[in-house]
């Protein structure tokens, strides 16, 4: 891992190994999601499933979509878009909740 981060500067191809590792993590998280759904944790089931989905998507964005290795401008761009989306979701949820 240490060596990989040293050699993986911008422009250099990402190693096959790191992709396979991330893929294994994604498969494991999918299995966990399916298993957790079987256990009745009431309201927490959905929260856990969505948290796992967030972790999975951040792995895909950072490694598969290469944001981790890109210039700062890409990170800022993705972060702003994510921030705006979460504000839209939060405001809509608040609206729906207090409207009832």
């Amino acid at each position: 891992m240490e060596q990989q981060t040293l050699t993986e500067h911008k422009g250099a191809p990402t190693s096959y190994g790191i992709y396979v590792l991330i893929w294994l993590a994604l498969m494991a998280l999918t299995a966990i999601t399916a298993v957790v759904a079987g256990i009745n944790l009431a309201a927490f089931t959905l929260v856990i499933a969505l948290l796992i989905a967030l972790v999975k998507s951040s792995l895909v964005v950072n490694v598969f979509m290469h944001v981790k290795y890109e210039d700062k401008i890409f990170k800022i761009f993705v972060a702003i878009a994510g921030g705006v989306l979460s504000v839209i979701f939060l405001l809509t949820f608040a609206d729906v909740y207090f409207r009832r």
Partner: protein
Amino acid sequence: MSEISLPESAKHTGHAGHPKKDVHGIKMGMWLFLMTELLLFSGMFLLYSAYRYFYTKEFHEAAMYTHTLFGTVNTMVLLTSSLTMALSITALERGKKWLSVTFLSSTIALGLGFLVIKYVEWSTEIHEGIYPGSPMLFKHPRGFELFFAMYYLMTGLHGLHVLVGCGLLTVMLIFIIKGKITQEDSVRLEAAGLYWHLIDIIWIFLFPLFYLVN
């Protein structure tokens, strides 16, 4: 001397086909497009959330009618296709053209496999009498109909994206074979890869919302 060589080198940076493309600009453009796609799906995720809040019990019961096995297998198929997509880019960047072609072909095959499984899944459900406006759904409380309306709308639009993605990747495959996308000029493959990964991300969220509510 330097005045003559300067416009010479400047020429090389500007034109398409030259080794120096605006790689950053191309990728940023793709990201911008992906954001609009994200907004398109976000609207539906919001609608789903609001309906789920108002019809919590019905959504729970309706979700038991979706086939978790189909959903889980399709999640794994799509995640694996994302892996082969990423590997294809690395292979090309290392100059291994045919390895890249192999990985990219696997990605397309997995994408088509996803659609085949989706077809079998939808057929099974339609056969069971579950489709928008079906008499079977009208016998249940209103939340059932809304759940399956969202289900067909969101997985349908997602499936359409997979289909478009397969088409896009096929074009990239031809470009690589014909030598139009090369080790030195791989940005178009990277941009297509970004689109494919976004489709994967959307499915990552669709999966728990439609298949794992029980």
